[in-house]
């Protein structure tokens, strides 16, 4: 049982503010991801929770008890680093056992044996106990690293980009391994990353931070489908979400959006109602690359004409970049699409899958209207 709460954390180094007023609560057994770009303050925040840094202001609570004055080694949290730092000359067994043999946590050998076996079984590495780290695959090494952190039965795991610096292929595999382990762990975990795929895949909840401030805290589903602002929307997805200005115009009795300078696009009823009620005249419209269709004839009046700017196959999928009225719009399409550079092309934006922000992109107005997503179950 462990919950972690940080309240009003502020931290500056010299004159530079790194964190300003960070508060959140991590529930028992939750996998909580702190996500943000390089320099956002993620690692500083993790180090404050670990007790390595002292915040200028604010408090850290473990199980509702303030631990501001508890030394790092007494906090009962375990840090897992990127390189796992295994002892190369020790077997897997001895690596995992090492914390229990240290002067501080010294346990009788029979306890060590029992505990190592228990942890190794959870992590499915019990068949590797006699090997040396050099004989292990990356996935196995990661498990051993976690096993060593786990053996002390910490109340909280703190992980600082444990797999972010691997190459893309390995990361894919390691993320799956990590997620597989996570199911058996049941330990409250705070995980720092700048890779949005890791955040979406692993997290129960994500805190998006930028320049030392929280932009949004939510489940992956909320973050992806209801981003609080343009920063959050742009941070999740590659190629990133297309966002452009649109003017609300009236045609007969209907409200439409004028985008790319001229084209008037029909919008769903609920959006019409919303902009009418709030008397909004300019909105920012976000649409993800996979939610734009293309064709070579003007199928309906919502189709917008453009010119193929580039076509980048990436395997099964390709990024199609279309120049529309001096703006570039990116689409995700199958890579076997027959597309010529510079040819004329029509794009069709699915207005039911758009995300609307206010005119400066700071606040979400509406998103994915009328789209029924199957169940609620984006559950990690």
């Amino acid at each position, binding site marked *: 049982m462990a919950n972690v709460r940080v309240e009003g954390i502020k931290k500056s180094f010299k004159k530079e503010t790194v964190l300003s007023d960070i508060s959140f609560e991590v529930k028992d057994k939750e996998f909580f991801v702190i996500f943000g770009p390089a320099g956002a303050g993620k690692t500083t925040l993790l180090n404050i929770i670990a007790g390595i840094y002292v915040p200028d202001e604010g408090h850290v609570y473990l199980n509702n008890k303030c631990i501001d004055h508890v030394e790092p080694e007494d906090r009962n949290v375990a840090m897992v680093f990127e390189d796992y730092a295994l002892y190369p000359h020790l077997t897997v067994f001895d690596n995992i056992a090492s914390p229990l043999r240290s002067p501080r946590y010294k346990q009788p050998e029979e306890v060590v044996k029992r505990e190592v076996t228990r942890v190794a079984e959870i992590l499915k590495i019990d068949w590797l106990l006699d090997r040396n780290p050099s004989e292990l695959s990356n996935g196995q090494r990661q498990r051993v690293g976690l096993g060593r952190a786990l053996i002390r039965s910490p109340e909280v795991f703190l992980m600082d980009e444990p797999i972010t610096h691997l190459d893309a292929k390995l990361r*894919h595999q390691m993320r799956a391994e990590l997620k597989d382990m996570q199911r058996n762990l049941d330990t409250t975990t705070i995980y720092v990353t700048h890779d949005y795929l890791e955040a979406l895949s692993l997290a129960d909840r994500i805190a998006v931070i930028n320049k030392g401030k929280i932009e949004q805290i939510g489940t992956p589903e909320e973050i992806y489908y209801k981003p609080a602002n343009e920063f959050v929307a742009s941070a999740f997805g590659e190629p990133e979400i297309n966002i452009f200005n649109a003017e609300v115009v009236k045609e007969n009795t209907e409200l439409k959006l004028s985008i790319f300078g001229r084209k008037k696009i029909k919008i769903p009823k609920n959006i019409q109602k919303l902009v009418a009620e709030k008397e909004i005249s300019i909105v920012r419209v976000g649409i993800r690359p996979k939610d734009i269709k293309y064709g070579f004839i003007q199928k309906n009046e919502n189709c917008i004409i453009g010119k193929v700017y580039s076509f980048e*196959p*990436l395997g099964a999928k390709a990024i199609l970049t279309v120049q529309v009225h001096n703006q570039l719009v990116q689409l995700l399409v199958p890579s076997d699409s027959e597309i010529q550079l*510079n040819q004329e092309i029509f794009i069709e934006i699915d207005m039911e899958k758009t995300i609307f922000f206010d005119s400066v992109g700071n606040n979400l107005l509406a998103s994915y209207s009328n789209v029924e997503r199957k169940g609620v179950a984006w559950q990690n």
Partner: protein
Amino acid sequence: MAELILKDVCKIYYKNKKPVEAVKSLNLKCRDGEFVALLGPSGCGKSTTLRMIAGLEDITSGDIYIGDRRINDLHPKDRNIGLAFENYALYPPLTVYDNIGFNLRAKKIPEKQIKEEIHKIAELLDITDLLDMKPAALSGGQKQRVNIARALIRRPEVLLLDEPLSHLDGKVRQKMRTEIKHLHTEINCTTIIVTHDQLEAMALADRIAVINQGVLQQFGTPLEVFNNPVNEFVAGFIGEPPMNIFNVVAIMENGILHFKTENSLIKFVVPEKYIRFVKEGEKYRFGIRPTDITVCREDDSYTVKTKVSVFENLGEECRIHIRLDNDNILSVVSSEIFHFKYGDEIKLKFNPERIHIFDCKTGQRIEKALQMT
């Protein structure tokens, strides 16, 4: 504008007096205006090849031609080649304008003409606003644009790009990639890019030369190397998430040849096109891309009933992972978003047209391996 031809090009280094073959008898013919990527892991010889084309490295044996000019013995500056390296090497005290114009000035071209050329190229690369700035004030993406502008200003017959994107991070990198691709359609100059990033090679190149340990493995369009890799190395190197590749054995069941994994978790009929190549009792390396497996409801000869080990929703797509054994995970990528959890039973259909079979020992694609013996 010209063809670039490499004929039996070899490079041998001496390390502690022992010869090291960095490039082994490389043959490549890049068409006029073509965009070719030299792709491979670090140390595969791709940069050495580029440096030999540029004239920064001697050629041990073989010939390099630009058009019908043999350039082996030409000085780098006489080869009519534009070079843009990964670290931009811009002159810090000079403005962007002077950086781009530097080589033209060295050639004593009239100032008026230099000005025209610089403005033309600056417009093409969208850096007109930066001309008065010093390199230190530029972002990584901007520096790379200036770098490429400087390489292009000499109107080279061949443009060489050495990992031009690897210093840039995430989003800037992707945007710059799109820009380079677009730029190539505008300038239409024969271009060689060296990269270790298969996505970059796929996105940019008309054709990719996959190189490993100094040997050309395959030279083909992005879709050719993706869909028809000639061996297990190319299959594993191209594509992300990587192709699922695991061991199978061919067995006979009810008079029909089947592939099966050792633990029988996966078993199905050998696809028609492989029947004449596959021998009963033999082991093979079996490959299928995560995008060539689909979640289905009904059974047929290519469905496998199994349980979900790990499920990931990544927004744009979802990934389903099945643990085959302690070391191997089978991954499935679907653009349709499903919602599964650990232990859910699912049926997976392997697209029989998209199964790749490699020889266990040589790693060659099975059709090819048999042709060779």
